[in-house]
């Protein structure tokens, strides 16, 4: 029962912050609302007894990605801080609302009306915590349920992203003087 109350509180926070995030005119407020959504999703992971996942969500998403967004907003546009120069396009908003409503109705209908879930749903689900040594052993094992191959792939992928980001941001050969002139 306590879990249910916590779930309802977190769900209200998530939905209100998400709606505010996509409808506000100021982009800095959108980033702040995104931060609240990320924290509340981490709270849902804690409710589901995935403590490691909640910690990863807080440290990577709320700590890292939101900081990157704020840096990018500060770097990109001074006018966005005073308010985005975007007006509500009537036709596009109606179209987006129709797409969202139809998609949501379809997804919820499919998820709620199938008979598969009622068969496999287990009663004693919310009880067992995945402990840290199991997580570490599974991530580094090459057995049947091991994840050493995706683990190595994601390290390569992060290296490729670092190199790609540096290459994208360093397109000019004679570099620094032009950049300084442009930023002035």
């Amino acid at each position, binding site marked *: 029962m306590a*879990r249910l109350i916590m*779930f309802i509180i977190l*769900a209200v926070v*998530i*939905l209100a912050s*998400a709606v505010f995030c*996509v409808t506000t005119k100021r*982009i800095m407020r*959108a980033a702040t609302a*995104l931060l609240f*959504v*990320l924290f509340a*999703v981490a709270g*849902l992971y804690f*409710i*589901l*007894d*995935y403590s*490691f*996942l909640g910690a990863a969500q807080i440290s*990577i*998403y709320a700590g890292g*990605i939101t900081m*990157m*967004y704020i840096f*990018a907003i500060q*770097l*990109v546009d001074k006018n*966005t801080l005073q308010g*985005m*120069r975007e007006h509500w396009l009537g036709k*596009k*908003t109606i179209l*987006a*609302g129709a797409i*969202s409503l139809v*998609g*949501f109705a379809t*997804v*919820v209908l499919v*998820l709620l009306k199938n008979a598969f*879930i009622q068969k496999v*749903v*287990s009663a004693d*689900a*919310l009880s*067992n915590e995945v402990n840290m040594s*199991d*997580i570490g052993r*599974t991530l580094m094992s090459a057995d049947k*349920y091991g*994840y050493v191959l995706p683990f190595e792939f*994601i390290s390569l992928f*992060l290296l490729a*992203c670092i190199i*790609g980001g540096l290459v*994208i*941001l360093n*397109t000019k050969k004679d570099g620094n003087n032009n*950049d300084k002139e442009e930023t002035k």
Partner: protein
Amino acid sequence: MIQIEYFFILSGLLFFIGVFGFVTRRNLIAMLISIELVLNSVDLNFAAFNRLLFPDGSEGMFFTLFSIGISAAETAVALAIIINVYRHFHSDQVNSIENMKW
């Protein structure tokens, strides 16, 4: 006891709020923020499926873990591209990028 249907409805709503923002926004960073909402709803669904339907395994948890890492890398590269676009066009609206080559 939380029913699994509550998680379905919550993550479905979060997903389509993100889709709504992605379609309506004209600012590149705001579109990227909407994509983050979509990614979070999918991660939440992975974790809820794993915990409430198959509590013996932990596949959904590892999928969510890898998904968090990959979305962090994706955000970094996308923000680098957006900053580069702003350097070239001095605008961060989607309409400013009409040609692939300048």
